[in-house]
């Protein structure tokens, strides 16, 4: 792709600036701009144009963001052009010059799928980047692979690798402590140990609990003993306290007996008597007071006749007083009303004099006249409008008829239309064909790749489908047999191993038996037992019977003559005899078991030998079966000439074969589809050509023949795309003409209809105006108006009539209001005098208004007096009721007093008081006796007095204190022991509690798990960085191996040119570890390591590598414009000249746009490349 024109319409400092780049391929476009002229903006414009505006742009300072706009004419590798306009926005930012949206994919296709970031990396280079990359190249540390990969990518991969490794080292070092993962591992181990330490072992808990239970048991036992002693001591103390209480009880009992048997009055009897007597006294006093009050109230009540009359007519007097205010106001208004009547009457008489016809116009005429006046203007406007419409329609219709006649007759386009629609219905057939062809290529490549991966068989793709191979079922069958044989063999191996182990054991046991030697006889056992018994008989004779056994003993021990063996020797001999006989018996019993064991082992030995023989047979059979199976298996593969692997391993081979066959099926399907598509396209081309021939003669008016779609060109069209394009354009042309004719015809009909309608409307409006004039004359008839009066004059006449009528009506209303006020005054006076006569004769000489006021005052006084009388009436009733209640209470209290006297069997109140005192004394003694009994029983801890008396009966009161003291000492001692035991229990309980750490261990485990999570996270983070460095390094070296030769050759040539032949080539050197690095060769054949290069030479070395990589890239990818920004600012003239020559060569492969602000570089370029190969733009 190359840029043929760059439109800086609104961007940075530019407004509507166009750079037309028309120079032939091989030319360098130089954009020369002084500082601030917009060179940097132009550079950014290229990126924005091709890949869209960035979100934040520095180029919106002259033009607003939304107005930024760039355009270009782009030319593809095939010569096709695309004209684009780029706006800033979120969507649809790419359009054509007419504003129609262009899909981004269309531009992407032109750019060969290049992405913005990658383009900036690969196809753009400035002096800063050149200097940095050059210095990185010569600073050491980079190996050759990194240099080549970096130059190919335009990226500093050495630095990237270093960063990845540093990241990885920051996470983990095998012998490090501080990297994150090392630290996390340490933290986890520590937390894990803490969690383990915090755990309570069940056995520890059990031991502590058992100890606690034991101590508890001891404490409880001591507690029981202590309790018994305390109980005994408490009993004696209790009994010692009971003895004086018993004596006091007996004394109280004697005093009570001395009182005899008095009447026991209720405890509340005295209080009741006092209350009744108090109430009787109070009631009698109250009764006297009430009688006095009743007499006073009855005397104060009397009647007043005049006050009664006022109260009876109270409502009427109040109503009259209310009317008094209104009446006074009406009298005041009356004066003003009379004045207004006089004024109005004067005005009306004056108006009547001016218009002597007023009042003669009949009802309805005035509205009719006003309606006619309003209709007149509307009717005249309608008539003028309809006349104008009629004229306009007539004129338009004439012009349209002329246009329609100019179109002429249209050809039949049915064949062409059907052919175009048929192609459209097929979709994008050329693209489909391209895709189908690409699919064929892909399928073929896939099949070839799978064939290469198949292995074991060599043949062509054509032979694959016919390759005779066993079926999956056959493979499964053989695999089953194969596996069965393997299992049998494994089982046999296992069985043989077990057999060998058994055999070894049996052999060991047999050898052991042989080592145990001779078996003792039954006779030896009998002899040992006889000697033992003989010795024991001698012991019995000496010990039990007291016999002399010296001779027998000597005989028994077979001592020599003259020697008398001692009894001790006999004891030793008897002991030895017992031991000998026991050993003999044991060995005899053991020998019988050994015999049985020997027999069993020999039997086992025989069985094992038989089993070994069987195993040998099985082994032979399995080996034969395996050989047979291998032969049969190989035979299955003979037709395919394949030497097979075991069935299990051939299964994936068959799956690969199956995949290959599927790939071949896909290939055949793709080829078929491709062929069908080609046939269909040929048919469509034929049909399109027929359609075009049908319409060849037509040359519609308004269509031009120079539109590039003439019949002759169509007939010569070679492929479907051009045929379809021509036919579509022709059809569109015809359709446009047909559409125009149809549109003009419709318009003609519409105008004819409009003309007829306008003429009809005009006539109707004329008739309406005539009718109006007739009605107007009729309406004016009889009015005092001159002939030919205008509508405005009539309207003024009518307004004057209306004003006069309003004045007359106002006069009538005011007169009526004055009459009403006079009538109301008369009614008020009559009502007042009537009430005066009834209620207040003393006011008969007063005027009505004064009388009404006095009546109101008298009424208010009468109402106040009535309120006081009503209150006294109520008090009298209440006093009488209270007196009745008081008498009732007195009677009841008298009955109560009499009942009290009767219950005490008394005649007088004084007798009653004495009886009450006796009763109280007897009751008190009874109470104290009961309390004393209770105290004795309680202190004595007994259920009843009698059992307590029996308990203390045998006690010696004098000995009691000594016994109690003794017991107290014992209790104290035991209590101390019990306390110690309780303390031990408490301590152990604390130990147990201390063991219960609650959730401490669980929490510690949670912490450890948190740390473990960190370890896992960091492990994955390390793995990513570490593996990224490893794989990138590997791929870099692979890239070096694949590209080193051609890249270095070309870079060497470029380096020679860029250094003005101070260097002649580049080569590779290897260090002791075999690591390759770049070496420069001077013109004197001396090798120079990059670190020894000067800054400028370093720049030139990087540029050589970069351009060599770019050329290699261009050989295999879509060429795109290479942007160089002031690359040679640090080059001397000779090297700048060489650099521009190199760029000139590069321009043969792709467009080169060189930005600079040095006019000198532009001059050098023109001198070096010649004016024809330099296109200069000054910004």
């Amino acid at each position, binding site marked *: 792709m190359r840029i043929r024109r760059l439109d800086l319409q609104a961007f940075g400092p530019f407004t509507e600036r166009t750079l037309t780049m028309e120079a032939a391929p091989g030319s360098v476009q130089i954009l020369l701009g002084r500082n601030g002229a917009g060179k940097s903006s132009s550079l950014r414009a290229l990126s924005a144009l091709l890949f869209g505006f960035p979100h934040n742009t520095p180029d919106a300072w002259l033009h607003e963001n939304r107005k930024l706009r760039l355009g270009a004419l782009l030319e593809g590798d095939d010569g096709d052009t695309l004209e684009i306009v780029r706006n800033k926005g979120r969507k649809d930012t790419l359009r054509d010059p007419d504003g129609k949206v262009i899909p981004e994919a269309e531009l992407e296709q032109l750019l060969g799928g290049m992405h913005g970031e990658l383009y900036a990396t690969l196809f753009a*280079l400035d002096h800063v*980047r050149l200097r940095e990359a050059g210095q990185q190249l010569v600073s050491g540390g980079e190996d050759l692979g990194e240099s080549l990969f970096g130059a190919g990518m335009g990226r500093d991969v050495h630095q990237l690798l270093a960063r990845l490794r540093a990241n990885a080292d920051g996470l983990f070092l095998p012998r490090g402590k501080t990297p994150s993962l090392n630290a996390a*591992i340490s933290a986890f181990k520590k937390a894990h140990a803490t969690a383990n330490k915090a*755990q309570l072992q*069940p056995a520890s808990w059990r031991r502590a609990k058992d100890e606690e239970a034991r101590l508890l048991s001891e404490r409880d036992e001591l507690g029981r003993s202590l309790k018994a002693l305390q109980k005994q001591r408490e009993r004696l103390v209790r009994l010692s306290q009971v003895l004086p209480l018993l004596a006091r009880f007996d004394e109280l009992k004697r005093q009570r007996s001395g009182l005899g048997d008095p009447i026991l009055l209720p405890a509340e009897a005295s209080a009741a008597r006092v209350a009744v007597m108090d109430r009787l006294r109070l009631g009698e006093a109250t009764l006297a007071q009430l009688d006095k009050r009743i007499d006073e109230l009855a005397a104060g009540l009397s009647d007043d006749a005049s006050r009664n009359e006022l109260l009876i007519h109270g409502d009427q007097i109040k109503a009259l007083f209310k009317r008094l205010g209104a009446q006074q106001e009406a009298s005041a208004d009356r004066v003003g009303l009379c004045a207004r009547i006089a004024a109005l009457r004067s005005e009306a008489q004056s108006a009547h004099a001016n218009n002597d016809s007023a009042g003669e116009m009949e009802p309805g005429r005035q509205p009719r006249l006003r309606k006619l006046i309003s209709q007149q203007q509307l009717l005249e406007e309608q008539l003028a409008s309809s006349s104008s419409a009629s004229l306009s329609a007539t004129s338009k219709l004439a012009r349209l008829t002329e246009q329609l006649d100019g179109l002429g007759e249209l050809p039949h386009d049915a064949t062409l239309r059907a052919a175009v629609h048929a192609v459209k219905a097929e979709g994008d057939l050329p693209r489909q064909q391209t895709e189908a062809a690409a699919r064929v290529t892909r399928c073929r490549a896939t099949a070839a790749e799978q064939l290469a991966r198949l292995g074991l068989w060599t043949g062509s793709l054509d032979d694959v489908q016919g390759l005779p191979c066993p079926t999956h079922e056959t493979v499964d069958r053989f695999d089953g047999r194969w596996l069965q044989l393997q299992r049998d063999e494994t089982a046999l191996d296992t069985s043989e191993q077990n057999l060998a182990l058994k055999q070894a054991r049996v052999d060991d046991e047999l050898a052991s038996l042989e080592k145990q030697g001779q078996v003792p006889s039954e006779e030896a056992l009998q002899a040992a037992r006889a000697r033992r018994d003989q010795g024991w008989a001698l012991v019995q004779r000496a010990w039990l019977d007291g016999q002399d056994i010296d001779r027998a003993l000597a005989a028994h021990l077979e001592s020599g003559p003259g020697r008398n063996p001692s009894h001790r020797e006999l004891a030793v001999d008897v002991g030895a005899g017992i031991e000998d006989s026991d050993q003999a018996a044991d060995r005899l019993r053991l020998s019988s078991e050994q015999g049985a064991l020997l027999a069993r082992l020999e039997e086992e030995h025989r069985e094992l030998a038989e089993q070994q023989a069987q195993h040998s047979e099985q082994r032979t059979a399995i080996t034969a079966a395996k050989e047979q199976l291998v032969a049969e298996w190989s035979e299955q593969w003979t037709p395919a000439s394949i030497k097979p692997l075991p069935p299990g391993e051939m299964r994936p081979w068959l799956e690969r074969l199956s995949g290959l066959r599927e790939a071949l099926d896909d290939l055949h399907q793709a080829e078929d589809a491709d062929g069908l598509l080609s046939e269909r396209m040929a048919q469509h081309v034929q049909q399109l050509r027929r359609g075009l021939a049908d319409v060849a003669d037509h040359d519609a008016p308004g269509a031009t023949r120079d539109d590039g779609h003439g019949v002759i060109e169509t007939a010569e069209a070679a492929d479907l795309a051009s045929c379809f394009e021509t036919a579509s354009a022709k059809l569109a042309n015809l359709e446009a003409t047909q559409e125009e004719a149809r549109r003009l015809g419709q318009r003609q009909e519409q105008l004819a209809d409009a003309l007829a309608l306008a003429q009809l409307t005009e006539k109707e409006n004329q008739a309406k105006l005539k009718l109006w004039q007739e009605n107007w004359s009729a309406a004016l008839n009889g009015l005092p108006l001159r002939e030919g009066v205008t509508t405005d004059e009539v309207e003024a006449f009518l307004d004057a009539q209306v004003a006069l009528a309003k004045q007359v009506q106002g006069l009538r209303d005011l007169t009526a209001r004055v009459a009403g006020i006079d009538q109301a005054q008369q009614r008020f006076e009559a009502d007042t005098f009537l009430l005066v006569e009834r209620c207040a004769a003393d006011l008969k000489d007063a005027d009505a208004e004064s009388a009404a006021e006095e009546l109101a005052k008298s009424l208010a006084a009468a109402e106040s007096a009535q309120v006081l009388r009503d209150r006294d009436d109520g008090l009298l009733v209440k006093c009488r009721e209270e007196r009745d209640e008081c008498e009732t209470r007195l009677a009841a209290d008298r009955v109560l007093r009499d009942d009290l006297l009767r219950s005490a069997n008394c005649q007088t109140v004084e007798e009653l008081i004495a009886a009450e005192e006796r009763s109280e004394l007897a009751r008190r003694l009874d109470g104290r006796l009961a309390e004393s009994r209770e105290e004795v029983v309680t202190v004595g801890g007994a259920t009843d007095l009698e059992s307590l008396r029996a308990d203390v009966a045998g006690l010696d009161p004098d000995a009691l204190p000594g016994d109690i003291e003794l017991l107290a000492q014992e209790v104290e001692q035991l209590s101390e022991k019990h306390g110690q035991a309780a303390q031990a229990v408490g301590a152990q309980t604390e130990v147990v509690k201390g063991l219960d750490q*609650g*959730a401490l261990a669980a929490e510690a485990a949670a912490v450890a798990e948190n740390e473990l999570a960190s*370890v896992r996270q960091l492990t994955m983070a390390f793995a990513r960085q570490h*593996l990224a460095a490893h*794989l990138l390094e590997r791929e870099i070296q692979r890239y070096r191996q694949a590209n080193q030769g051609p890249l270095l050759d070309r870079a060497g040539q470029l380096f020679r040119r860029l250094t003005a032949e101070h260097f002649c080539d580049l080569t590779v050197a290897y260090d002791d570890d075999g690591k390759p690095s770049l070496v420069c060769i001077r013109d004197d054949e001396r090798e120079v390591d990059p670190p020894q290069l000067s800054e400028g030479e370093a720049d030139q070395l990087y540029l050589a590598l970069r351009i060599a990589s770019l050329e290699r890239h261009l050989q295999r990818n879509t060429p795109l414009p290479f942007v160089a920004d002031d690359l040679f600012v640090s080059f001397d003239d000779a090297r700048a000249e060489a650099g521009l020559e190199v760029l000139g060569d590069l321009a043969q492969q792709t467009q080169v746009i060189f930005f600079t602000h040095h006019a000198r570089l532009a001059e050098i370029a023109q001198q070096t490349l010649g004016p024809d190969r330099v296109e200069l733009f000054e910004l």
Partner: protein
Amino acid sequence: MTSFRFVHAADIHLDSPLIGLERYEGAPVERLRIATRDAFANLVTLCCEQEVDFLLIAGDLYDGGWKDFNTGLFFAQQMHRLGSQQIPVFIVRGNHDAQSTMTKHLSLPANVVQFDSSAAHTRRLDALDVAIHGRSYATREVTDDLSIDYPEPLPGGFNIGLLHTSADGREGHEPYAPCHPEALVAKGYDYWALGHVHQREVLHENPWVLFPGNLQGRHARETGAKGCTVVDVVDGAVSHIEAVPLDVVRWSRRRIDLADTSSCDAMLDLFAQVVTDEVAQADDRLLALRLEFHGSTAAHGELVHDTERWINEIRQRAMEVADDNVWIEKVRFRTRPVVSMKQLREREDPLGELLRGLDDLRHDPQAVADLAPVFDELLQKLPHQARSGPESVDLSDGHTLCQLIDDVESLLVPELLAENEGSGGPLGKELP
């Protein structure tokens, strides 16, 4: 027939720690340390508050390898709480309990019944007319179908089978005590209270056969609400069944598509919305959230270049949005650059060759396996616990290595496409 209410729970795994939660600055550490304890205490509180008639625990009360006796003491305390409310508890020991030494030394109150492991037995609650049949595991690995020997149902009563089983097999669970749900149904019991499978699942209704799931999710694969099942029985028939969440930490995993975002800030905004929704759904519980971002986005380069920073930003935003109600368990950036990887891969340049090289590597299992020694030095230092369990890291595993190769590709592409850091380049640093 009587009416009553009981609770069915299983797989308590008391005091087993929550797995995979990496600590970070501001993480609500204190809220999750004893999550399984708190969840169990919630269960006991529920039983007391709802005055249930009995509690069933279908195995795996403890975690197999956990030996701290304090856990047993805590369990005993909770059983005392139920005992004080006269609520009996019926337990079968599961595979983890059989492995645990706790049960041999722990004295439990009288209201707790543990079924024997020698054979299936029946315990009756005469007042309720209920028969509970159960059998504990004797060893960790029980491969026989224990349900076959469960007693015949008590005629006329409400029969419950208490069983720790993998049923007919569940992914992620050992196939212990396998059985067929149809056979359980055919047994004639009214309710089968199962345990072992951590995800709640109803295998059959009428009669009911169900796993209540575990009480507290313990790692990112145990997401969603966790708790017990409350069962109401009216006149001898199940009238109502309700799953009641009791967990104190709620696990959740979310994939967030960044296809419509063009910046890391937009990613954070999108995340804030997601975390707000998730926290709302967790009902005031602490939310342990695992995130995976995917999709093609312009932010991809920044995210993979400085992953650590953006994870911290996400955690910070989570704290701003949800205070201490959320713990960001793990963040994975599985995003892709906006540029078409297919086009890059087809290019004839170093980057294209690199990508094709990685592709070849992915498709060659042997070559992938050969990468494992790259991590030998790390593996020697790595604690074995990191290589086991649900969140294990196995750098010798082919699948893990392939995933790492994907990560490497994601990491390298933006690094190789980005402009050199020292210069904006002639076309300007900022490109769309």
